[in-house]
């Protein structure tokens, strides 16, 4: 029973804390550049505002337009069940899928948004969809390779096993295979969560990818999509921190205090990663569209190196 409650708490914490993470990153980016920046609660206010607005639907849109935000949001609610957010042991239903399964569900959300972008019939929706698919084609092999690397490292596809291995064995943690996986995943994290050097959710037409896909949305549906994007960011951060980078400070027994402590630790870890992300965003300028493959090639390379290093320990 307590495990079920914890599982619900995991999903809720992802849902509720995701806008906070977004707010923190946005504010820090401004602060680094000596500007005031929005408050860290601004994403909540945005969502609240959008939820109270009227939804305008294009005449050409079909049912896909309606279900895409819901499916995307549901996907983001499903993935937290599979990964260690608060506890370092599997909770009920977390054996539904392994790392690869989680990846598929995340991709399904993105796929639905792409379909919706095409479905809305606008020019920007089409451009956004094609660019998103292009980026996916570049990023996906690397993602798979990172998963392969993780699997070879832990001899298992379950995030909990990886977590235990890394938290328990410093020799593996400091081994080159793991460090390269961290580096490779970090680049993927930047790409997948709309950060520079790609930053797909910009409003500049030449660069926009995510923003173009959801340009036709408004009101509560837009709120759901934005929220889903924030949750995706939160989930990827969770995987990066709790599985790969900082596998410590999770609740071992599942007590209430442990869960709250783990949530607090999560915020601490995220601020650490966010700091790194903000650093990258500050020093890195945006790449031209035709150079997007460069960071991904680097990530691919790191994943290959990790796999090679993994064979030789």
């Amino acid at each position, binding site marked *: 029973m307590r495990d079920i409650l914890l599982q619900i708490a995991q999903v809720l914490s992802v849902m509720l804390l995701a806008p906070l993470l977004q707010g923190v990153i946005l504010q820090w980016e401004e602060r680094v550049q000596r500007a005031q920046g929005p408050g860290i609660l601004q994403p909540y206010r945005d969502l609240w505002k959008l939820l109270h607005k009227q939804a305008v639907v294009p005449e050409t849109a079909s049912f896909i337009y309606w279900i895409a935000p819901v499916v995307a949001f549901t996907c983001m609610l499903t993935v937290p069940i599979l990964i260690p957010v608060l506890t370092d042991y599997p909770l009920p239903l977390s054996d539904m899928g392994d790392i690869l399964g989680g990846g598929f569900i995340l991709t399904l959300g993105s796929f639905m948004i792409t379909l919706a972008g095409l479905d809305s019939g606008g020019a920007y929706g089409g451009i956004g969809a094609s660019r998103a698919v292009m980026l996916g084609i570049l990023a996906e092999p690397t993602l798979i390779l990172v998963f392969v690397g993780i699997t070879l490292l832990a001899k298992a596809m379950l995030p909990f096993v990886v977590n235990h291995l890394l938290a328990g064995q410093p020799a593996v943690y400091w081994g*080159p295979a793991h460090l*390269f996986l961290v580096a490779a995943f970090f680049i993927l994290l930047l790409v997948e969560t709309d950060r520079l050097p790609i930053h797909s959710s910009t409003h500049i037409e030449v660069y926009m990818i995510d923003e173009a896909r959801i340009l036709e949305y408004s009101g509560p549906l837009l709120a759901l999509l934005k929220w889903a994007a924030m949750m995706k960011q939160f989930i990827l951060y969770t995987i990066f921190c709790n599985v790969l980078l900082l596998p410590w400070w999770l609740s071992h027994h599942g007590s209430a205090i442990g869960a709250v402590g783990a949530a607090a630790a999560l915020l601490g870890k995220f601020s650490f990663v966010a700091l790194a992300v903000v650093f990258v965003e500050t020093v890195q300028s945006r790449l031209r569209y035709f150079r997007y493959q*460069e960071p*991904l*090639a*680097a990530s691919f390379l790191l994943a290959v190196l990790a796999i090679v290093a993994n*064979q030789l320990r």
Partner: protein
Amino acid sequence: MFAVHLPPLAASLFSLLAIASLLLAFVMLGSRWLKDYLLAFAVQSWLIALLSVAIGYYGHYPELYLIAVLTALFRGLLLPYLLLRIVRQMNVDRELHERLSPSSSLVVGALLVIFAFVVADHVGISLGIAGSVAVLALTVMLSMKLIGFLMLAVRGEVISQILGLLVLENGIFLGSQILVPGMPLLIELVILFDLLVVVACFGVLVRYLLLHAGTSSAHDLRRLVG
């Protein structure tokens, strides 16, 4: 043999240093700016010096400390300084005529690493030491060799070619530190010295190229064919 029976932390440290050097070779492969090359090369040399120290410590080869100091001084400071002087003479800061874009060369480099790994693994299996640091050293050595050749092939600036050659040398040096740490001191010293002479010769030759051929890119050297 030294590199087979190691405490786990030492093995981890060796492999980390070796792979980090390989990564720096990729940094060179993936960057366009000549200064970045130089920096990556210098850092790589320092890593190799650290590796020498670590091997000297764990394997009880005191002469490797001397090698480490000389490596750091020669390869880590003097060579980059000499190369920097060449770069300043040339009035060129970046690679303009690569035949393969940096991202493609990264991917090709990754494939070369896989090839090197297959070869090294084969050798390791035949020696019964599969999965040890020795095989990793062999992999890194062969990969840096291949990456050096790749750099020679796809880069045109003379300084990139020199650095490609130096990557070749660094790869051999790194591998030999792990595989044959007991190699006579004299040989290692002479090879270090030889490298210095090579770079000095290249410096003179680059000046000739600028003066008499009026170019700093090997792509312009295409008069002699057939």
